[in-house]
C-alpha cells in the first residue's frame, strides 16, 4: 500500500498500516546511515524548508540531516513566534515560502494547530515537527521504532509515560501512535499536569503513583519537565518533583528486567532521571536520537510520493 497523505500533522490521523509502513521504511532507510557515503539520490531536486518558530537544535538538525541524506535541498529558517504577534502572520509567511516553490515545509511552532492552519493554505506537504501541546509525530514515530527494534513488536507492550502530560506534545503523539499499534499506555505525573479526559485518547490508564505505572513495564518514558512552563502554580519545587516523579534505580527496578528507559531529551539530569539511570544499559536515549534521522527520512520520503530508494 502507498501513503496517501499530503501532510503529516498528527499520529492521530494515521492508521496502523500507515504507521507500520513508516516504521518499515525507517528501518530500511536506517541502513543508509551506516554506509560510508550516507547519501541516496531519492529526493534529488526536492526542496525542504525547515521553518522553526521555536528553537530546537536537535529536531531541526535531525530533519536537516534526513533531507540531505536523501539528496533534497534543505533550507533552515528560524523565526520568532513574536513576529506573528508583530504583524507578519503565519499566512503571510506561508505565501512567501510558497513563492519559493518548496516541496515540503517542516515546521515547529509554539501554537497548537498552527500546522493544520498552514496545511490548509499551502499546496506543498507540511510535516509537523512539534506544535504547541498538540503533537510531535516524528518523535512519536522514533519512539515507536526504538521500542519495535528492542521488542520486535508494539502490540501488547506496557509503556509507562511519566511527567507533565498536559503540556507534552510527545505524550500525545506517543499515546496515539502506541495505542493504535496495540500497546497499553500507563500515565503518571502530578495531578496539576494530567489533562481532563486523557484516558479517552486510547488504551490509556492514569495511575496515581508512578510506581504503579512503572510496575512490570516494558518501556519507561520520562518526559522533560520544562521549568519555564510550570510557572509558580503547578509544582511546589523541582526537588519535590524529582522525589515523587523522577526515575531512580529503585523505581526502575519495578519494571521488567529487560525494560528500556526513554526520554525525548534534552534531559534535566537529577530531575526526571537520576544520572545513573540516564547512562545505564537499559537507557535507549541515544538509540532514539539515532532513529530520529531514519524516521524523518521515511516521513520526507512518503509525503513526496514514495518513489523507490536506490
Amino acid at each position, binding site marked *: 500500500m502507498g501513503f496517501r497523505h499530503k501532510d503529516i500533522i498528527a499520529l492521530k490521523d494515521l492508521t496502523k498500516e500507515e504507521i507500520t509502513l513508516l516504521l518499515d521504511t525507517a528501518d530500511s532507510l536506517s541502513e543508509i546511515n551506516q554506509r560510508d557515503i550516507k547519501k541516496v539520490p531519492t529526493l534529488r531536486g526536492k526542496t525542504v524548508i525547515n521553518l522553526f518558530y521555536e528553537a530546537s537544535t536537535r529536531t531541526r538538525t535531525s530533519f536537516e540531516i534526513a533531507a540531505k541524506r536523501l539528496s533534497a535541498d534543505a533550507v533552515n529558517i528560524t523565526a520568532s513566534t513574536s513576529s506573528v504577534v508583530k504583524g507578519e502572520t503565519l499566512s503571510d509567511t506561508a505565501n512567501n515560502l510558497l513563492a519559493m516553490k518548496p516541496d515540503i515545509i517542516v515546521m515547529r511552532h509554539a501554537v*497548537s494547530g498552527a500546522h493544520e492552519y498552514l496545511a490548509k493554505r499551502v499546496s506543498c506537504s507540511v510535516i509537523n515537527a512539534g506544535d*504547541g501541546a498538540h503533537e510531535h509525530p516524528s518523535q512519536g514515530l522514533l519512539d515507536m521504532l526504538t521500542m519495535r527494534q528492542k521488542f520486535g513488536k508494539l502490540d501488547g507492550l506496557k509503556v509507562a509515560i511519566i511527567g507533565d502530560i498536559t503540556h507534552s506534545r510527545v505524550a500525545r503523539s506517543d499515546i496515539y501512535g502506541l495505542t493504535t499499534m496495540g500497546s497499553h499506555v500507563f500515565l503518571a505525573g502530578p495531578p496539576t499536569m494530567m489533562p481532563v479526559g486523557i484516558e479517552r485518547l486510547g488504551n490509556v490508564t492514569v495511575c496515581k503513583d508512578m510506581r504503579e505505572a512503572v510496575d512490570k513495564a516494558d518501556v519507561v518514558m520520562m518526559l522533560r519537565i520544562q521549568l519555564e512552563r510550570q510557572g509558580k502554580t503547578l509544582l511546589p519545587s523541582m526537588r519535590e518533583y524529582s522525589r515523587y516523579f523522577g526515575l531512580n534505580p529503585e523505581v526502575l527496578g519495578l519494571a521488567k528486567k529487560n525494560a528500556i528507559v526513554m526520554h525525548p531529551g534534552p534531559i534535566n539530569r537529577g530531575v526526571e532521571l537520576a544520572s545513573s539511570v540516564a547512562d545505564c544499559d537499559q537507557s535507549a536515549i541515544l538509540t532514539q536520537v539515532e532513529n530520529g534521522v531514519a524516521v524523518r527520512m521515511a516521513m520526507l520520503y512518503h509525503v513526496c510520493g514514495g518513489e523507490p530508494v536506490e
Partner: protein
Amino acid sequence: MNLLIKGGRVIDPSQGIDANLDVLIADGVVLELGQGLAAPEGTPAIDASGLIVTPGLIDMHVHLRDPGLEYKEDIATGSRSAAAGGFTSVACMPNTSPVIDSKAIASYIINKAKSEALVNVFPIGCITKGGKGESLAEMGELKEAGCVAVSDDGKPVCNSELMRRALEYAKGIGIAVISHSEDLALVGEGVMNEGFVSTELGLKGIPWAAEDIAVAREVYLAEFAGAPVHIAHISTVGSARIIRNAKARGVKVTCETAPHYFTLTDEAVRGYETNAKMNPPLRSAADVEAMKAGLADGTIDAIATDHAPHHPDEKDVEFNVALNGIVGLETSLSLSLKLVEEGRLDLNQLVSLMSCTPAKILGLDRGTLKVGAVGDVTIIDPAKEWQVEAAKLESKSKNSPFLGWKMKGRAVYTVVKGQVVYQA
C-alpha cells in the same frame, strides 16, 4: 409612521395576548389591537396571516464597535444587521475606543444612531472609569446622557469592594449593572473550554469554575447590597444552578445566555476553528442542556447575542492569536426558534426572553404592544427556510460558526415606530 398589520398571530406576553388580531399603529404608536380593524385611507398594510406578530425584539448585549473600531462594524451596519435579525432595539456595550465612560461618547452614539441607525440603539456605559476597574465611572451623568445600563463587558470588575460600591451606587440612581463574570486568574492563558477537546487539541483550557466563581461573587454582592445585578452571557451548569438558587431566596439577579451556548459545544472548536472561539468559551453538552433547561424554567431571563464582529484578519490566524467572539444578530432568532421546534420553549416564553424581559431589565418603555406603546414590531415567519451565507449577512463582519447552516424561521418584517425598516 402609520401601519396596519392584519390577521397575524399576535403574541404579547406583557398583556397575556396570544390570538389572531390586527395591530394598528398610528404616528409611531400602537393605536389599537383587535379583529377586523379599519385604518384610514392610504395606511400601508401588511397581511400577516400565517405569521407571528410580536413586540419588537430587543438584543440587550451587542458590540457595535463604533467609535474607534469601525473596520469591524459601525452603527449603521450594526443596525442593519439587527433589523435583518428582527431586532428593533439593541443595547451596545461600552468597550469601544474610546470607551463609553463619558456623556460625550454616549451622546455621540445616540446622535449617530439618530441619523444612521435603522433600529433603536441604547448605549451601555462603563461601570468604572476607562473600563479600567479602578474607580467608579460617572454613572449619574451616563444615565442622564441616555445610557440604559453600566458594564465593563469584556472583562470583570476584579475588585470585589469596587463591585459592591458599583451595585449600591447604581441602585441609588436606578441604572442596571451588567456583569461580565470571569475569574481571570483561573482563565489564565486559556483559549477554549477545559475538557476532553482541549486535551486532544493541546489548547489551554478555561475551566467552568472561572465563570461559576465569578457569578457566585456577583450573587453574594447583590444579596449583600440589596441591589440588582444582571449577569451577561452565562454558559455553565454551575452558573445556572447558582442563579436558580439565588432567585429562589429572593436575590435580585437576572441573567442572559446567547444562542451559541444553547446550540454548540466545544466540539465546534475541532480543526482549530477560530469562528468557534469566544468568551466565555463553548462548553460541554451538559452545559448546553443546562442553558436549555434554564431558559425553559425561567432561571435565564433573556437571550442576547453578544454580537462581536471581527475583521477576517483577526480570525484567519492560528487559534491562539484569534480574537474572541462571533456575530450573532442575524442568526439569533432562528436558533432560538429551534428551541420552540424542539418543544423546549413555547412562543410566549421566546418572546419574553427576546423582548419583554430585556426591556424590563434595562428599564425600556418597549417590549410590549400595549395601546400607547411605541410601535416597534417584529413579524416572524416560523416556517421560512434559509441558509446562512457570509455574502448575505448585513453585518460588516462575517465571523460566524453558523455559516452554511440551514435555518428555519426568521423575521420577515422589522418595524420601528410604525415603519418597516427591514423586509425579508
